[in-house]
């Protein structure tokens, strides 16, 4: 029996090597799905058998949630990617020669993200985040249009500065740990750090956290540092937009949460909460207003991702069992819903031949399945019942109300602004007069509706084991 953690890392690596060697996109896209599917299976086995953690790799209750979500969305996106890429090749938007590269990079990116999630060493985690940044940069620039190149370049430079600052923070964490734990590898091992965090020098930890918050916060897309995010989402291939929003932001958030736990364990350090609350609220309110004047449909949903990451960081900043629970739920629901929306938007953009909102209209009339799928997705992301995001946003707001009504009111304000902006755009795109070409769609609806069904089920009835698990993790997060 292979160790599932090894499986999680080795399968994407082998996949990347094989896909880099294989010509022909049909076989490659099937193999891409297969490799992602095997990774998902390995991730699922983690639920009942947990390998012992070593010096470099770690499996605990917190990262299993992220790993399962990561591999699941990775798998469904690979299914969507197969049909999306087929269409792009037919219309000549992408050259066949790039396909080898694209699929290999997809698996390499999954490897990077899985490694970041299972890493027990803060240096290794940083290397993994860097790897996933590099691979996504290359894929954002895949179309080679001036706009795509600009987006990739901007993402590259800003992302590099972000991870450079995160590395500086990582070095400072080591320096804080070194007098307590002693020199050598142990002082970078996460489990050791977490166990002895209360003895660390608080002032060094504080400075380290500022750097980590700025560094990994750039990758999360928090507001003053978000400039790369809308461009990267709008100009890259849609499967990559789905993965960026659904997964990569979460991986960076995961890194941030790990370090937040260190600070929370140290009585002398500053409370990380207020900083995260401030950045989260700023992201939420800023992105909500930015939603109004978007003309590009993918850019619109990219801003909606910033908004949701704002809510999630806000919830984790409020902390406490309820706040963390709401944050975790919101994160899982957002990943599923946002990638479902990008699946449908990808096909919409292909049918209409444009991403401009003014040239898309009356989708529910011209393409009922796709149109109603988009309506359901947008309703879910805007936080309408009975979808899961309604529940998590309700939890965020209600748990905040008990502790700080002013913050709760600001949060509700942001949510309402975003809600009306999304509804305004949705009305134009989904209903009313049909605009744009009405050709047939060559789409695979399964990934989109699978995600939406999960979000719907979670909104109506969250299974007791999942609730118990999330409650447990929320307690761990402190």
């Amino acid at each position, binding site marked *: 029996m292979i160790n599932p953690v090894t499986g999680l890392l080795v399968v994407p690596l082998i996949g990347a090597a094989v896909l880099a060697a294989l010509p022909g996109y049909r076989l490659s896209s099937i193999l891409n799905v297969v490799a992602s599917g095997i990774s998902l299976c390995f991730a699922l086995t983690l639920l009942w058998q947990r390998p012992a953690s070593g010096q470099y790799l770690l499996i605990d209750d917190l990262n299993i949630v992220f790993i399962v979500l990561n591999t699941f969305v990775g798998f469904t996106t690979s299914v969507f990617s197969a049909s999306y890429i087929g269409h792009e090749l037919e219309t000549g938007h992408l050259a066949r020669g790039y396909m080898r590269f694209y699929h290999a990079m997809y698996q390499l990116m999954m490897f990077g993200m899985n490694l970041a999630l299972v890493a027990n060493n803060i240096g290794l985690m940083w290397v993994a985040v860097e790897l996933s940044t590099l691979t996504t*940069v290359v894929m954002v620039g895949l179309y*080679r249009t*001036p*706009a795509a190149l600009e987006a990739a370049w901007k993402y590259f430079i800003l992302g*590099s*500065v972000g*991870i450079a600052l995160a590395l500086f923070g990582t070095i*400072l964490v080591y320096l804080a740990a070194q007098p307590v734990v002693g020199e050598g590898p142990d002082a*970078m091992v996460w489990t050791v750090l977490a166990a002895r965090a209360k003895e660390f020098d608080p*002032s060094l930890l504080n400075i380290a956290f500022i750097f980590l918050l700025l560094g990994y916060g750039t990758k999360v897309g928090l507001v003053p540092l978000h400039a790369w995010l809308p461009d990267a989402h709008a100009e890259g291939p849609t499967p990559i937009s789905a993965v960026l929003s659904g997964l990569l932001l979460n991986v960076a958030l995961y890194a941030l949460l790990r370090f937040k736990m260190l600070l929370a364990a140290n009585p002398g350090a500053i409370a990380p909460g207020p900083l995260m609350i401030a950045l989260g609220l700023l992201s939420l309110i800023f992105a909500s207003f930015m939603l109004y004047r978007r003309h590009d449909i993918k850019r619109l949903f990219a801003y909606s991702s910033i908004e949701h990451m704002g809510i999630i960081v806000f919830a984790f900043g409020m902390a406490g069992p309820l706040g963390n629970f709401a944050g975790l739920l919101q994160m899982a629901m957002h990943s599923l819903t946002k990638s479902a929306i990008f699946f449908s938007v990808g096909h919409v953009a292909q049918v209409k031949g444009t991403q401009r909102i003014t040239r898309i209209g009356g989708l529910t009339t011209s393409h009922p399945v796709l149109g109603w799928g988009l309506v359901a997705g947008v309703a879910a992301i805007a936080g309408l019942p009975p979808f899961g995001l309604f529940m998590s946003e309700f939890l965020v707001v209600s748990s905040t109300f008990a502790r700080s009504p002013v913050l709760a009111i600001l949060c509700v304000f942001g949510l309402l602004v975003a809600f009306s902006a999304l509804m305004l755009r949705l009305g134009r795109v989904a209903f009313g007069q049909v605009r744009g070409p009405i050709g047939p769609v060559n789409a695979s609806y399964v990934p989109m509706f699978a995600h939406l069904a999960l979000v719907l089920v979670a909104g109506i009835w969250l299974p007791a084991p999942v609730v118990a698990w999330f409650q447990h993790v929320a307690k761990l997060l402190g």
Partner: protein
Amino acid sequence: MNGLSFDIAHMLAGMLVLVSFMMLYQVRLYSLLHALALHAFVLSTSVAWQAYSQNAPHLYVTAAIALCFKAIIIPWALRGMVYRLGLHREVETVVGVGMTMLAGMALVALSLEVMLPATSQADPVTREDIALALSVVLIGLLMMVTRRNAVSQVVGFMSLENGIILAAAGAQGMPLVVELSVAFSVLIAFIVIGIVLFRIRERFDTVDDDALDRVRQHPGMFGAEIADERWRRPGKIEAAIASDRRRKPGLVGSGGPHE
């Protein structure tokens, strides 16, 4: 740690900060690249000294990477690129050199003020190294936001990265330093290849971020049509970009919200 060893480590780290300041006042791209090579060379000496004084042989690998890759290969490649792509040879700044230098001094003061009290428990060499490394990092950031050419922004990023490697080497007994510096070198190689890979020259007149910003504001203005346009009337686009550059202050990434 004896006094001499401390003094040498201190001097080398201080030299790195000085070379960072040298990079701030270069006006020619080539001389900026020479300053970058010097920066990497000083870093390499500093890391090698740390390897010797901490008795940590693996740091020699990091020093060797800094010497071969960052002091020789990258500046040489960037130089070739500037020549081949026919980029502007001047460094274009957003703020004047004097202001930038003053800001740089303020950043050094800030980093000493922040780091020295916080690291009071640490080893004195580590303490000084980290404080100076933070200065180098902040000056690198300053350079990135005050420069307009993509190449000089890359140079700013590399000096920032040198500061981080200095911090990592200065932290006593830090594991994975070699791995981290290799990972960083890969990142930098990617950035340098990226300038070529993204064929910025093929599409744009310059690798200037301002020109990149313009593309998004006027879709269809550059791109395919522009290639024909330039073919017929060389010089027109250059003039347009130059006038645009005068009008519009721009930093990398400042153009987030507008479309």
